[in-house]
């Protein structure tokens, strides 16, 4: 569901309950309509696409959709620059991004959000995804950002689409912490899900790859602040 594009809108139900489109921000967030939230709360900013400490107003919620959260998970393993957000998916335990009642299909739009351990939004953007199965290696269905579709980059300030690969996002130095130095980081998001014919020893996962934009990577660079990934189907 999407919030109304203009006219009366409210936190709770002052502007109307159960409307189509919705006029209650709390209804769209799926929380109690008698909740008390500040405009600066993480979930409020996330819905309004206003991450960080910038000004936010009630009009920022016009036309916004909370979407359906497909995955909301802290990283479970890390190796070098790759953070794996949920892994070990098998035919009987499938990747929730690519299986189940609500899932990402080819050409769907999604919101990607990385938050740190203080619930501050580090990275947020929207993109269309490609979902495909490689015909010559048909054991995993994959999602990846469709080139040229990254939009609505809400955080961090100064982030931009990578100039040589428009499936990736460049984020400024200081967005993520390294053991040494401060580095512009290139982010790449992807995931896999086993198909019916997948042998049991090949599993699926969701991952975010962190690579320095230039220069030599410090050894074992780990982005310790990037702890949570949300993928929301819009």
């Amino acid at each position, binding site marked *: 569901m999407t919030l109304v594009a203009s006219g009366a809108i409210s936190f709770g139900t002052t502007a109307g309950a159960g409307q189509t489109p919705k006029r209650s921000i709390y209804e769209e967030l799926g929380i109690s309509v008698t909740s008390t939230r500040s405009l600066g709360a993480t979930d409020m900013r996330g819905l309004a696409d206003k991450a960080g400490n910038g000004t936010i107003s009630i009009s920022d919620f016009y036309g916004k959709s909370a979407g359906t959260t497909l995955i909301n998970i802290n990283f479970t393993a890390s190796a070098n620059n*790759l953070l794996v957000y949920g892994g070990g998916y098998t035919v009987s335990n499938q990747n929730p991004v690519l299986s189940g009642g609500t899932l990402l299909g080819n050409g769907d739009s999604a919101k990607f959000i990385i938050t740190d351990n203080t619930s501050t939004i580090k990275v947020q953007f929207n993109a269309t995804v490609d979902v*495909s199965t*490689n015909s*010559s*290696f048909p*054991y*995993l269905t*994959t999602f*990846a950002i469709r080139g040229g579709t990254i939009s609505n980059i809400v955080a961090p300030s100064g982030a931009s689409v990578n100039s040589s690969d428009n499936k990736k996002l460049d984020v400024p130095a200081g967005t993520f912490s390294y053991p040494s130095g401060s580095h512009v980081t290139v982010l*790449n998001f*992807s995931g*896999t899900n086993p198909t019916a014919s997948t*042998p*049991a*020893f*090949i*599993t699926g*996962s969701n*991952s975010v*790859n962190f690579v320095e934009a230039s220069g030599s990577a410090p050894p074992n660079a780990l982005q310790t602040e990037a702890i949570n990934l949300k993928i929301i189907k819009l």
Partner: protein
Amino acid sequence: MSYTKQQVEDFLQQLYAAKENNPEAYSPELWIDIEKQIQAKLKTYQEI
């Protein structure tokens, strides 16, 4: 289901062929991740 060493080696060859035919099919880290999983399975045969 169990797999013979030959079957696992065939999976690896399929992976390499797929990568050669369509390098863009998976992101680089996914190619590495899948190869690592297959190599790990192969290693279990070598340890027996």
